[in-house]
């Protein structure tokens, strides 16, 4: 066994433990509150990891990830309420729709160097948010659309549905970034000209990855709408995009595992901070400033202090 593989075993064990814990929660408690807290954790894991697969690897900041959350949410509401389609059709539809949306934004911006991408992501999310007010006869305006049916017939079923979707997306993103494309993304981040000189179409890879990021988030956004049974303009607000970004940065960008841990930490912290809800955004933004200055690798950067177990070493950024 190579040393590289030896190193990976503890982290595999860690994830087996985490997922075993997630899968066994309904065995200990059927309390609706705890289950819904963990459902929120899973959905934010989808948001943050799907953000990370593009923005974290290429370091092109995506400030409008909520666009996919909202777009998928509204699509879910239309398909579910108007046509009564089942989640098994709606989830792929949302993934395809958001993937195409991501491809379109990518085609418009990723050809250009410079900050066009960051600017256009903000602009798109902003206008999508405004459109929900302009076309309020279709979108319900500020109040949004309520009355989406639940995923399955029971709370426990919903919990497992979302958990399994999250696990599948997480594994897919992990494999994607640990494989050939992850390496290419890192290479593009380091030196795009060298990648182009090797005969690789970097714009294609970037656009495709952005589309994948959008598609994964589209599934998350659809699950979000299903679990709330409601979709509204708040799902597309800049606050949502920024929260996703903060979760990923606090966890550690460019690792997929970092945003996974960041989502768990911040969503649980969110529940603890319920009493001081007014200060939440202030606490988060302060946290992100501290992280950027003192721990730019995020929470996952601390894993090296657990060195005897070398828990995350193979996942942490070098």
């Amino acid at each position, binding site marked *: 066994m190579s040393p590289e593989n030896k190193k990976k075993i503890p982290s595999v064990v860690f994830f087996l433990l985490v997922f075993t814990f997630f899968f066994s929660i309904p065995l200990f408690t059927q309390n609706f509150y705890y289950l819904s807290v963990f459902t929120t954790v899973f959905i934010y894991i989808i948001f943050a990891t799907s953000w990370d697969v593009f923005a974290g690897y290429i*370091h092109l*900041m995506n*400030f409008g990830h909520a666009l996919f959350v909202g777009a998928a949410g509204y699509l879910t509401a239309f398909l579910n309420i108007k046509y009564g389609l089942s989640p098994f059709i709606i989830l792929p539809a949302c993934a395809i729709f958001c993937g195409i949306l991501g491809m379109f934004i990518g085609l*418009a*911006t990723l050809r*250009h160097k*410079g*900050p*066009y991408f*960051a*600017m*256009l992501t*903000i*602009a*798109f999310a*902003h*206008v999508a948010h*405004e*459109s929900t007010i*302009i076309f309020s006869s279709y979108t319900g305006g500020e109040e949004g659309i309520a009355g989406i049916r639940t995923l399955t017939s029971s709370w426990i079923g919903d919990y497992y549905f979302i958990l399994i979707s999250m696990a599948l997306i997480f594994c897919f993103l992990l494999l994607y970034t640990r494989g050939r494309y992850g390496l290419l993304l890192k290479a593009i981040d380091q030196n795009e000209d060298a990648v182009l000189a090797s005969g690789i179409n970097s714009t294609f890879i970037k656009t495709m990855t952005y589309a994948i990021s959008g598609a994964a988030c589209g599934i998350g956004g659809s699950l979000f709408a299903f679990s709330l049974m409601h979709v509204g303009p708040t799902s597309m607000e*800049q*606050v949502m995009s*920024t929260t996703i*970004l*903060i979760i990923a*940065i606090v966890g550690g960008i460019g690792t997929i595992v970092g945003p996974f841990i960041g989502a768990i930490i911040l969503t649980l912290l969110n529940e603890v901070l319920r009493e001081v809800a*007014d*200060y939440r*955004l*202030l606490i988060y*933004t*302060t946290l*992100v*400033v501290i992280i*950027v*200055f003192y721990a*730019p690798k995020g929470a996952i950067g601390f894993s090296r202090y657990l060195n005897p177990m070398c828990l995350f070493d193979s996942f942490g950024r070098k």
Partner: protein
Amino acid sequence: MEIFSEIFLFGMIKGCIYALIATGFTLIFAVAGILNLAHGTFFMLGAYISYTLFNSIQIPLIASILLASLLVGFIGIILDAVLIRPMRESHTYVLVLTVAVAFAAQEVILMIYGPQGKNIPNLIEGSTRVLGVVISWHQIAIIFITLIVLLLLWLALRKTKYGIAALALSMDETGARFVGIESENIFKLVMFVSAFLAALAGAIIAPILSITPLMWDMPLMKAFVIVVMGGLGSVLGSVLAAFILGWVETFVGFIISPHITGVLSLVILIGFLFFRPSGILGRRI
């Protein structure tokens, strides 16, 4: 014919405010390479600080507007020194830090002033008729203040030592340092001017808009659209683009519906990114 003079005048007022916002945004980007997502926050702070100075300390409105703009200019310098300068090498972290600052400022303002809109009175009360259109003296004052400020900015960039140093830095930072330009001081100065202009825009438009903690994202969006239209880093292009956007938005607002102006600017943005990413003038300051 009256509708055209209305579009001309009201579009011009919009263009003035956009020009003040966008020139600062593009200047700091061209000279220091900072894409400042907290630029809208300067706009908001300008409005709130002049409101506070006028209402609590009760100094004359024109003085409170000027004082507020100067104060926000210094806030810009502090922001630059504390948060942006250490991270200036990384575009990514500058974006993240400035967006964090924007949200933190929004929350702080929300805590201090609450969510209700605030109002400050006009600089000059009353209205008059220009080209057959009723227009308030305050709106005429906005046009004159903007034109004077833009003219001063133009002279400062072209004729003074600091302006020429800023131009040199925008062309080639290393080369500018070689000939003895102290880049850090120029960055500070440009940050001050950038924040000053945004705050001035916020303070002089405040009597027309209502002042709310969420008012920072509109100017940021418009600044994006304008700098892409005018060419990233081109001050002259930004001024031109600001007035064009002001007129186009007012025209569409009058002819079709005022609700679609937000979407309109996005359509313009995408159109430029696809067909002319270098903007109207390309990259010239």
